[in-house]
């Protein structure tokens, strides 16, 4: 769906079909804004990483394209899945980034800029982020790394899920 900049009336104008159709389209967009989502089917190998810098969890599937119309638009992003790390002295650090935005992309530095952290004893499952973006096409990625050594795991049996939509 899409949003169209409205037509302004002036005195004595009559409502034209084009105006009413634009209004209909914009109301429909407000009701059902653009969204993108991916839910893992729950089969296959778990995702793992041993790297401490921000790596794509899945550069194909947890990489969602979204066209926004707000100027700027507020985008809400959610992720959930069961994470583990192999050692009590390590932690899994995760984030979502707007990969088209240089500043947000800096969120790949998971040493000091991450959204949530899981240890062996605190299995984390979900988090929420917001992005303020200009109108256009944007790409949102889930990234992760493990701090302190060892292996981070995202269980595919938990059917990891990522969703983004324009608020």
């Amino acid at each position: 769906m899409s949003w169209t900049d409205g037509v302004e009336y002036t005195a004595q104008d009559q409502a034209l079909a084009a105006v009413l159709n634009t209004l209909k389209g914009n109301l429909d967009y407000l009701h059902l804004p653009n969204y993108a989502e991916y839910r893992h089917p729950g089969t296959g190998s778990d995702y793992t990483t041993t790297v401490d810098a921000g790596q794509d969890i899945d550069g194909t599937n947890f990489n969602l394209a979204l066209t926004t119309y707000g100027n700027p638009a507020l985008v809400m992003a959610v992720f959930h899945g069961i994470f583990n790390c192999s050692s009590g002295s390590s932690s899994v650090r995760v984030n979502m980034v707007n990969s088209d935005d240089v500043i947000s992309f800096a969120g790949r530095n998971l040493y000091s800029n991450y959204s949530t952290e899981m240890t062996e004893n605190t299995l984390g499952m979900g988090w929420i982020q917001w992005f303020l973006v200009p109108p256009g096409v944007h790409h949102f990625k889930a990234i992760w790394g493990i701090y302190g050594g060892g292996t981070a795991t995202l269980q595919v049996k938990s059917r990891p899920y990522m969703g983004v939509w324009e608020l």
Partner: protein
Amino acid sequence: MTWNTLPTWSNGDVPDAADLNKYLQNLEHLHAPVLASYAEPEASADLTTTSTTWADVGANWNFNITTEGGLVLVLVALRLTNLSIDLEIDGTRLGEAGTTGVGSSQTPTGTTHSTQVLLPHLLVLSAGAHTIKLKWRTPSGTGTITANTSHARMYVMKLRGG
């Protein structure tokens, strides 16, 4: 407030009051917040189960909603011990066919921890009536949702009227 499917107009069409009122009703629909929620009362007893198969957490955690073809955001915030949880939408669980669920306090090797869970999930549902349930199971013994010291809660939000 219901959502109206608006007509597509052609040049020369003349909208009447009923037509224009549908636009106003849709605006009101978008403006009205629609939220169903449940939170365990403060310092209530913990919720426990010994069920090793998927079961309803309870009637308080079942939500019957009617949507108009929009988006629905579900948020669940719980503290789990020896427990897996899942969401069931119209009789189908989100999780895989087995026992993992979408949230668990179990590691892959079976070690149990107490785990704070935030489960955010976006639903894209067809217009009509839907039932959303929180489900749980324990691998063995007793599984617990902490309610005594942790605020167990679930929200079902119809975004912009849903």
